């Protein structure tokens, strides 16, 4: 799960990372009077969205007075934001963070990520921050420093020192930096993160070290030991996706019009690819799981049909341990429970497939059957086009 900047900063605070004072977070429907300012300003107003490039898109503003800050925050709420990372889609700004602005002198990039090949965390840093790591890798690859981490020891003192020397951290904040780097790795391990990023980490004109932005991606598999995270909403998931999750179905909404129901994540991905190859576009990724019981299939139908774009449904199930005849009964029973209203194409393969196909064809329900995934995809594309 990806956390918003202020949610990440709340975790950073527990690890003592140096940050500017946060005035507050404004949500849709909140009055800007809720924001209690103290201090001199200036203040910075930041749209809380899960995409980089906010500044250029108008999602970061500076205010010199509390009144201006309130006004800007109010305006930013509900704003539609398109950045270079949103693939042309607009994100609605639902929350805005207001905090003290920093007088940034230098920007550094610092993150901890999972090195999948090594199976261990790695610290990635660059003396030049502010842009994304992908851009950095393109423009200044020679500045990127990687430090592998032993998960049982964390970042060692000498590694933190080496990192500080590499990044040319000034003597006055050298110790503070090494402590910060060690804390960030500690946070990564203790909080079961998949990614922790500070971009930028600033050195102010007065020589102070300040965390400007935060990005944390947590591991869903580890939620059982982070109860405080389970209450947080998943900002990335759509309403249908959230609903699917609560009933144990793995669903991701896509742009096309062919609803897909598949058992197994890999086969589900391959099904989307095959639909595309046949000239269509899938409306969703949906893994109905290994069970594929009447109950699961019914739920899956209900979830798929919540998307009004869906013009046909393609079911692709490889019956292994769960035999095809049982799956066919499940599809028939579920079809009776849910008003489907769009063409249904079913491809069954595996154990007892003949019996399964017979159950489908004699069920009295209008089901188009296919003998291969390729045939099924072609039939679904045709059905969607004609509907």
């Amino acid at each position, binding site marked *: 799960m990806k956390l918003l900047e202020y949610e990440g900063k709340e975790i950073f605070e527990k690890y003592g990372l140096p940050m500017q004072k946060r005035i507050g977070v404004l949500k849709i429907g909140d009055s800007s009077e809720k924001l209690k300012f103290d201090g001199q300003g200036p203040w910075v107003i930041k749209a809380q969205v899960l995409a980089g490039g906010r500044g250029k898109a108008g999602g970061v503003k500076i205010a010199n007075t509390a009144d201006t800050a309130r006004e800007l925050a109010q305006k930013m709420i509900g704003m539609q934001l398109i950045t270079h990372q949103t693939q042309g889609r607009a994100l609605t700004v639902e929350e805005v963070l207001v905090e003290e602005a920093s007088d940034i002198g230098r920007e550094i990039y610092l993150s901890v990520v999972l090195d*999948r090949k090594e199976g261990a965390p790695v610290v990635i840093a660059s003396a030049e921050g502010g842009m994304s790591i992908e851009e950095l890798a393109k423009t200044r690859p020679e500045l990127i420093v990687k430090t592998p981490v032993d998960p049982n020891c964390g970042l060692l003192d000498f590694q933190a020192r080496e990192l500080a020397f590499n990044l040319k951290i000034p003597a006055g904040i050298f110790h503070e930096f090494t402590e910060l780097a060690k804390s960030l790795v500690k946070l990564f391990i203790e909080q079961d993160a998949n990614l922790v990023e500070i971009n930028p980490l600033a050195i102010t004109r007065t020589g102070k070290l300040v965390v400007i932005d935060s990005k944390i991606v947590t591991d869903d*598999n580890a939620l059982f030991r982070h109860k405080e995270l389970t209450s947080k909403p998943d900002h990335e998931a759509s309403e249908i996706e959230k609903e699917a999750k609560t009933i144990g179905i793995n669903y991701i909404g896509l742009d096309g019009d062919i609803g897909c129901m598949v058992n197994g994540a890999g*086969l589900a991905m391959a099904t989307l690819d095959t639909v595309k190859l046949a000239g269509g576009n899938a409306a969703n990724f949906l893994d109905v799981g290994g069970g594929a019981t009447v109950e699961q299939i019914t739920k899956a139908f209900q979830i798929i049909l919540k998307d009004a774009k869906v013009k046909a449904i393609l079911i692709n199930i*490889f019956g292994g341990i769960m035999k095809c005849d049982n799956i066919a009964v499940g599809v028939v029973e579920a079809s009776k429970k849910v008003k489907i209203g769009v063409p249904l194409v079913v491809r069954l393969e*595996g154990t007892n497939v003949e019996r399964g196909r017979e159950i489908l064809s004699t069920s009295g329900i209008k089901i188009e059957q296919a003998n291969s995934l390729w045939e099924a995809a072609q039939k679904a594309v045709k059905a969607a086009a004609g509907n």
Partner: protein
Amino acid sequence: MSILLNKDSKIAVHGLTGSQGSFHARQCLDYGSKITAGVTPGKGGTEHLGVPVFNTAREAAEQTGANVSLIFVPPPYAADSILEAADAGMQVIICITEGIPVMDMVKVKTRLKRLNAEGKNIILVGPNCPGVITPGECKAGIMPGYIHKKGAVGIVSRSGTLTYEAVWQLTCHGMGQSTVVGIGGDPVQGMNFVDTLKLFQHDRQTKAVVMIGEIGGSAEEDAARYIKECMTKPVFSFVAGKTAPPGRRMGHAGAIVEGNAGTHASKVEALKTAGVTVVENLSEIGKAAAAKLKATLKPVKK
């Protein structure tokens, strides 16, 4: 010969007495696999499915000669079971469990590396995988046994049902399998494509390999490098996730395109450059392999 498992493999099932463990162990026994022990702390001394249950993996290994662990333990405890199996001297550890925290696997991986550096030769398969089967000899996993046939094609895959699909197509085209290995869909896992390809390359029964990849990570690119430099056997491949949106996890924890890393295009290009036959349409993997191999392989009956 085959890889990882054969008719003499003796399996200890961790979590034998649980519902998943019970169900799938029964299927493995029916297939003819030798399950010699169950491991469930607190249930030592009892018997389940006619198999003796032990409190610890060490007792299971010492008293029944078990050399393979098959793990069905729930996610919060599965990493510990892997380490227990390793400590007990199991040579092959197959972890089926889905949903193990990545950090737990990071710690497992660190310890296994150290044990192997000390001279142990422990192979971990998974987690979040369907397991391993050597058709006609031994099944240690959750795959439907009957779709497989003994033969000469080795299969390695990051996905479950996608593997069954490939196996089924091969079987229907008269091509049996030497061993089928599901390495799993997690970002941090035991053996990877390269480790498996090496075993297939050195296995006399295996004459060709089918490799089923997916988006995320760089395992396919690493495999391509190995194939180009070291493999003499033909390799066929399909990579799932061409149409997956970037930044979203497609069911498997490891199936995600992050920034410019782990894209479908990069994997396919690397594999093609290495001389691998890459099919774009999954429905054609059996046909593609058959077209190239029919002349050299003796067909098996479906």
